[in-house]
């Protein structure tokens, strides 16, 4: 698999705190990589650096041949190809579901309204929310909101999808509907980088699992290896804590 996302020596400090310490990793095209770790381990910071919502103190990130961390790059064009799903959904509350999906394609890609609407309707069907197209975000359950957020990101036809703890703000009974959509994406060959606490999803969908702690990658492996035969003491301790 050629690398789609390549992170080399990523470091990030917030004042005294070193959130990332010289992290290097990659995500292959069509690969699903799940990043796990205790809170404050730097996993979200790493994910947010991939589309430069977080600016690294040092280190480089590439998406295919685009140099994300270079200030010479057109970050907006790069972001068009990187979908992101947030813990708190961040749907636009003043727009209907359909308008949420149509905004970026019409505003950024200058697609026609009719075109964008057709695509949006298709995407809503894909995440099982066809009947909600005219609803307002506040009328949706958490799980529905997150599925709309995924569809909104897909509307830009990204080549990578970043998920920042997509199920952490959900009631337990809504977690599955969101994970199912993500699982479908993974099986269809989308490149996914997922920060999550859902070990079930990692086992079912991940090609590789990365365990981070205190700003460093501690261990990387297939789900089977990492979950069943962790090598590092910190990994073992973390897994014992959550499994």
């Amino acid at each position, binding site marked *: 698999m050629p690398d789609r996302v390549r992170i080399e020596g990523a470091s990030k400090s917030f004042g005294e705190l070193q959130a990332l310490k010289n992290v290097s990793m990659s995500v292959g095209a069509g690969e699903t990589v799940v990043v796990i770790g205790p809170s404050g381990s730097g996993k979200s910071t790493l994910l947010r650096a991939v589309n430069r919502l977080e600016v690294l103190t040092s280190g480089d990130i590439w998406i295919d041949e685009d140099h994300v961390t270079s200030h010479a790059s057109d970050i907006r064009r790069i972001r068009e190809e990187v979908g992101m799903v947030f813990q708190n959904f961040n749907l636009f509350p003043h727009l209907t579901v359909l308008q949420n999906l149509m905004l970026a394609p019409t505003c950024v*890609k200058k697609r026609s309204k009719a075109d964008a609407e057709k695509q949006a309707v298709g995407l809503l069907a894909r995440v099982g929310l066809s009947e909600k197209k005219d609803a307002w975000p506040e009328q949706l359950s958490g799980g529905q909101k997150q599925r709309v957020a995924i569809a909104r990101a897909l509307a830009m036809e990204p080549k990578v999808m970043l998920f920042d703890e997509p199920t952490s703000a959900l009631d337990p009974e809504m977690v599955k509907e969101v994970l199912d959509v993500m699982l479908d994406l993974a099986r269809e060959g989308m490149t996914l980088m997922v920060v999550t606490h859902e070990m079930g999803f990692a086992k079912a969908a991940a090609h590789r699992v990365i365990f981070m702690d205190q700003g460093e990658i501690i261990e990387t492996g297939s789900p089977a290896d990492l979950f069943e035969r962790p090598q590092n003491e910190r990994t073992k301790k973390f897994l014992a804590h959550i499994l």
Partner: protein
Amino acid sequence: MAEVRPLPVRIQVTDGALIPGKGDKTVRASWKIALFGALGLLVFLPLYNMAPVQEFVLSLWAGLFPSPDLTARLAFLRSGKYQNIWVDILLYLPDGLAVTFSVTLSSILLATVFGLAAGLGQISRVVLLNRIATVYVEVIRGIPLLVQIFYIYFALGNLFHLDGFFAAVLSMAFCYGAYMGEIFRAGIQAVPVGQMEAALALGLSRSQAIRRIILPQTVKIILPAIGNEFIALLKDSSMVSVMALVDLLRLAKNYGSNHGDYFPPLTVVALVYLVMTLILSWLVALMEERLNQNAR
């Protein structure tokens, strides 16, 4: 007797009348008393001063307590030279009202433009813009409006030959733009930061995100505050009467000096201002309630 409950602890960033919101019985009651009291006086005073009514009242008094003064006043009433100046003033008022309203409306529109620019400037990452906006807000808010009006009209007006209406609108808008800049800034910053992140992640530019995502949500947040500014501006527009503009207050003052009696015109003008601000604050409260109902 209606129960008098202490006002809930609420600090409003406004110098307008209290907003009579639902469930705020004490404020609602005082709002009603003030409004109907003012309207009642505006109807009662002209009626009471009509010649036949005055004649009836005065002859009643003269019958009870005869005095040369009362007899003279009765004679004057019957001579046909008596003029009911309360009615007279009400007929004059529309001219002043028109000036007051056009100054207020033009100022609020221009102030919104200044305010939006100042608000965006204050959150701008461009250091120069940021400095200009912050200093503008700081300086203007530190100078009394009346001083600014004098300054623009008399000091600058002399230099640049500013027309009265233009100078009035400019000084009001300049001053209120600074207040509204603060409102816009607070409103923009009240939109959760995740909204901007989501927009940027989709590939929107910062300015697209502000226009399409942040400002529409800001407007909803700040509408009531803008309404309050509108009320405050309506009242403060009386300050432009120091210029050669015949607004409500100036009209009353002119009328008073022409007739040698300031009491009736100033009473009427004060009541008219009161009625206008009370009605406007009720409209703002209505708007606030509707916004809260469909809070999306």
